[in-house]
């Protein structure tokens, strides 16, 4: 630090007054423990809800279901009310400096809403056989809430709920754990849903309406679409058609980087596209007999991908300016 200041002083770029100001700033600068405290809070919430869950489970006979349901409902409403009272005025931009307490009470309210709904169904068969309704209601509610209060966490809850409504289990862990998450009947629904999500993300970026939500849409949408289509490629006939579809989506994802200079979709497009392409190649050519060719295939194809990624900016014609 001081070497830098010395250098700048020597070159007469900053005055010695400024340098001493900077030194004073560096000396009094506090350490930010923002993330540490936030993690503690999450941990506390997890412990508390887990502990309370067990306690209630053990004592359900003496508490009674209706009392419990009333209690959850009241608590849920209180949480909603608190965040509503402390809300920031609505805007299509990102709302900065929200009070963290109202943020968490909003999150709590939404979680409690899910608990309440599940409880009602479990105990009183509230929704009967209309299971769809039970996931449709939270999806709609959460989408509304996330836009109204500008809360990205609730947006991802809304997306997972909407996925559940369609019969897809798209929470991140199950997404990555296995390719079997999607029942065969839902594969095309999954592709459509994923593409739709990506489109919404793209629209929100393009029209500048809640631009910062785009990342969440992209993350879920691209993963769902790619995994669904890979599953289709692995388990259905018409492999060539599915491969073409996959490569088309990959190409769109790669070209998207050119427009937005954000590389999440590009990376996903390359990885998923590579998996699909490799699978297709190996399922059509009998590499067992030509072991060396398979080694050369990986060598050359990976080399090509590295070359592409390394020169991605000049290949796609992206200007030098950086954008994370």
């Amino acid at each position, binding site marked *: 630090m001081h070497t830098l200041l010395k250098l700048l002083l020597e070159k007469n770029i900053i005055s010695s007054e400024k340098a001493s100001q900077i030194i004073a700033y560096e000396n009094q600068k506090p350490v930010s423990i923002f993330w540490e405290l936030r993690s503690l*809070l999450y941990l506390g919430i997890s412990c508390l809800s*887990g502990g309370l869950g067990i*306690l209630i489970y053990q004592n359900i006979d003496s508490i009674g279901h209706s009392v419990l349901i009333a209690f959850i409902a009241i608590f849920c409403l209180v949480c909603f009310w608190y965040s509503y009272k402390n809300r920031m005025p609505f805007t299509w931009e990102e709302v900065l400096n929200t009070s963290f307490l109202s943020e968490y009470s909003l999150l709590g309210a939404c979680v409690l809403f899910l608990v309440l709904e599940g409880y009602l169904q479990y105990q009183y068969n509230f929704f009967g056989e209309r299971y769809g309704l039970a*996931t449709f209601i939270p999806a709609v509610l959460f989408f509304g809430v996330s836009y109204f209060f500008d809360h990205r966490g609730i947006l991802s809850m809304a997306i997972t709920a909407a996925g559940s409504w369609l019969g897809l289990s798209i929470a991140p862990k199950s997404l990555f754990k296995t390719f079997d998450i999607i029942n065969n009947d839902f594969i095309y629904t999954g592709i459509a849903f994923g593409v739709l999500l990506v489109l919404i993300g793209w629209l929100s970026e393009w029209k500048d309406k809640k631009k910062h939500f785009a990342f969440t849409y992209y993350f879920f949408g691209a993963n769902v679409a790619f995994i669904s289509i890979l599953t289709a490629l692995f388990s259905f006939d018409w492999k060539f058609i599915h491969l073409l579809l996959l490569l088309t989506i990959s190409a769109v994802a790669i070209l998207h980087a050119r427009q937005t200079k954000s590389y999440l979709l590009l990376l996903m497009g390359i990885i998923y596209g590579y998996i699909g392409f490799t699978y297709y190649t190996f399922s059509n050519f009998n590499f067992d007999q030509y072991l060396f060719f398979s080694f050369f295939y990986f060598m050359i194809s990976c080399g090509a991908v590295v070359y592409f990624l390394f020169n991605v900016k000049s290949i796609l014609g992206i200007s030098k300016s950086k954008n994370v």
Partner: protein
Amino acid sequence: MKAYNETWVENLAYKSSLNEWLKKGLISQAELEKCNEEVRQDFYDPNWFIKIGLFLFTGIAISFSSGIFLALLGVGSDNITMGVFLVIFSVLAVIVLEHLIKRNKLYRSGIDNALLYSAIGFLFTGILSFFNFDFVDYLYPLLFLVILIPAIIRYADPLVSFGAFMSFFFFIFLFSNTYSWGKTLLSFIMMALSAAVYFISKAQKKFIYYDDAQFVIETLALAVFYLSGNYYVVREANALLNNQSPSVEIPFSLIFWIFTFLVPFVYLYLGARKKQRNAIIMGLLGIGFSVFTYRSYYSVMPIEWALTLGGAILIGVSVFCIKYFKSPKFNLSSEAEEQGKLQKLETILVAQAFQAKTSDDTFKFGGGDAGGAGADGKY
């Protein structure tokens, strides 16, 4: 000595503090531009997602290109031939690495990381296969350490320094176990050595080039120091080494109890005083582990009450701290340094923790495990 252009590495560090000063209004935009002229660097610096992709695909390419030769050799070949080939691969990887760093101005770009790690891996397995994979157990980490140290000096890679630190302490652990006095004094040896590593590293702050590597080593030293004085670790390790099950009370237990509860608070205090964020984090984690340690031997209350009360206390403390440190006190502040970067990740994690379940299993859960993040059977 150093593979990457050292001035550029330094300028990279300077640049981030210049940007910070600009944000705080300490220097003007015009001044920043003049400063940037002075602290020029020209590393290839792509987006994070690109780096991940580069690392992944370089890694696959390397393993298959070496695989070709190993397949040519055939499975039945003797260890010496295989060792020779592996060492040759290692040398080749280093040559390519050096060449690319020079020509393409790489700096932790994924490509150079993958090449470096595979060069180390090839050399390590190559040397092992010269000796037919037949070593006394403590020589494995020692050999690994001997390979890693030159790599740290030249490339200053954080992950390599992580490996070096771990293999050093693994070596000490295994080596002490060959002597009976070593077994008895193990925890004191580990504490002394981790403290020594920490203070030596702290005293050597001449080069910005090694900042990240040193940060990793210091953080790990803090962790090892705490853990090797922790009652639970000492008692269970002692039982494991002497084949006792269940574990029995250890000698000097009072000393270890004191360490268990004192060290985290010392970390917190010193972390705040010296503005060491890693010490603060280690202190917090240490307090958590100390509570766990106490509960493992003295059951104060049933688990559900412990979770409920502990959770309530945690929520209370963190809410209080977030409010209390809003305006900085004791060098600490609860305001975010920069918003946005980690928050994206947080939203994804939220969806994992609090998900709406699919129609198939929504109605199977009872009151007990309804949706709560921590309630899925871990406790």
